């Protein structure tokens, strides 16, 4: 573990240097395995947040889920210099291979694999049209706040920051219309409810169902 960066009160990003590294596709995940002294084990999957241009390392961004056992361990126990057991990269459907244009739609920590895509696009094809629509509850829940530029459209579902004049409430038609260009490939990630609602809106906007890739995270961690 080379560095730990707090993103929000319940989200941290962990940079891990890998003894055996291979470049991932933006959107892929790693499995993390924890082993207790008596051999008890817990495993979870986490999306990579970094660009594969970061050679030899990956960044995993972890949302702390109370009652979980892997995410609280990362948040409460792991310090720089620790070793953690990871294996990956895995799965090759929710990945960006240079398709354009692209719209990214993320809810809460669903933004993590989308950030890998956005970061990689900025470093490899900065002129390629790609917008991120990002739904968060409050100002303090914004992950990667210092990296979100003109390519990100935020909406605050609970409490916008003071002086905010942009979108509020759930992702809606108007917000998506602003981000959806001509027949895009869409990547949607978040809770099941968020993904269902957002992908329904994308279908209504005429996006081809075969070009809507979704990733839904479960209730546990």
């Amino acid at each position, binding site marked *: 573990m080379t560095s730990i960066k707090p993103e929000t009160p319940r989200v941290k990003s962990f940079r891990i240097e890998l003894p055996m590294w291979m470049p991932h596709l933006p959107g892929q995940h790693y*499995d993390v*395995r*924890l*082993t*207790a*002294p008596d051999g*008890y*084990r*817990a*495993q*979870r*999957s986490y999306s990579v947040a970094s660009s594969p241009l970061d050679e030899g390392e990956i960044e995993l961004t972890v949302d702390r889920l109370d*009652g*979980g*056992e892997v995410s*609280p*361990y990362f948040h409460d*126990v792991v310090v720089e210099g*620790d*070793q*953690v*057991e990871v*294996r990956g990269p*895995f*799965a*090759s*459907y*929710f990945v960006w291979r240079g398709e354009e244009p692209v719209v990214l739609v993320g809810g809460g920590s669903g933004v993590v694999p989308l950030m890998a895509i956005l970061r990689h696009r900025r470093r490899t094809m900065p002129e390629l049209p790609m917008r991120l629509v990002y739904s968060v509850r409050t100002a303090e829940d914004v992950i990667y706040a210092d990296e979100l530029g003109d390519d990100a459209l935020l909406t605050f579902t609970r409490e916008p920051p003071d002086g905010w004049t942009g979108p509020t409430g759930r992702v809606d038609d108007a917000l998506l219309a602003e981000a959806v260009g001509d027949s895009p490939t869409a990547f949607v990630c978040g809770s*099941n409810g968020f993904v*269902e609602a957002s*992908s*329904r809106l*994308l*279908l209504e906007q005429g996006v081809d*169902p*075969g070009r*809507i*890739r*979704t990733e*839904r*995270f*479960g*209730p*546990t961690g």
Partner: protein
Amino acid sequence: MSEGFVSRGFTGRRRTPEELAERLPPGQYNEDGFPVLTAGPTPEIEPEEWGFRIDGMVAEEREWTWEEFHQLPFETVPCDIHCVTKWSKLGTSFGGVSVDTLLEGAEPLAPYAMAYSYGGYTTNLAIEDLTDGKAWVVTEHEGEPLPREHGGPARLLVPHLYFWKSAKWVAGLRVMDHDEPGFWEANGYHNRGDPWKEERYWTD
């Protein structure tokens, strides 16, 4: 992940009671809920438009409408299910028709099958993983109509393999003389997916 090492300061706080622990395959944890995982938007298939086919290398192709399907012998299937994303749901149940019943009149002439779904999803299975009381096409979960997000009106149920093999919105089985990767099998996941051997990914 074979050898591994002890994680500093990890004790494990979510241990499963012993009587359930032996029903959890390696690397799985017990989940009371029923998470939804789908690669794309949820297809909206009304029961009236749903049908199930058996085609490909069979002595006789078969097809059932929703109504015809419900004339077939219906079974309640108590089972544990295991998702490759690490959760398992223990002691749940589904209701539907055994694949043995469905294959009876069709008579497969080859050892492989591709399950295909409304919306384009596919998953490959050996005929021997679909027969002898190991697989069903189900329309109910815990006594209720199968919710759309879980594959309603009908999904395949193959509880002895990871749950991506239990294709949601299933439309049919194509019997084939060769094995061919389905959707997730072509995208990094194991060709067979036995949870007890922890066959998650290509390299497992």
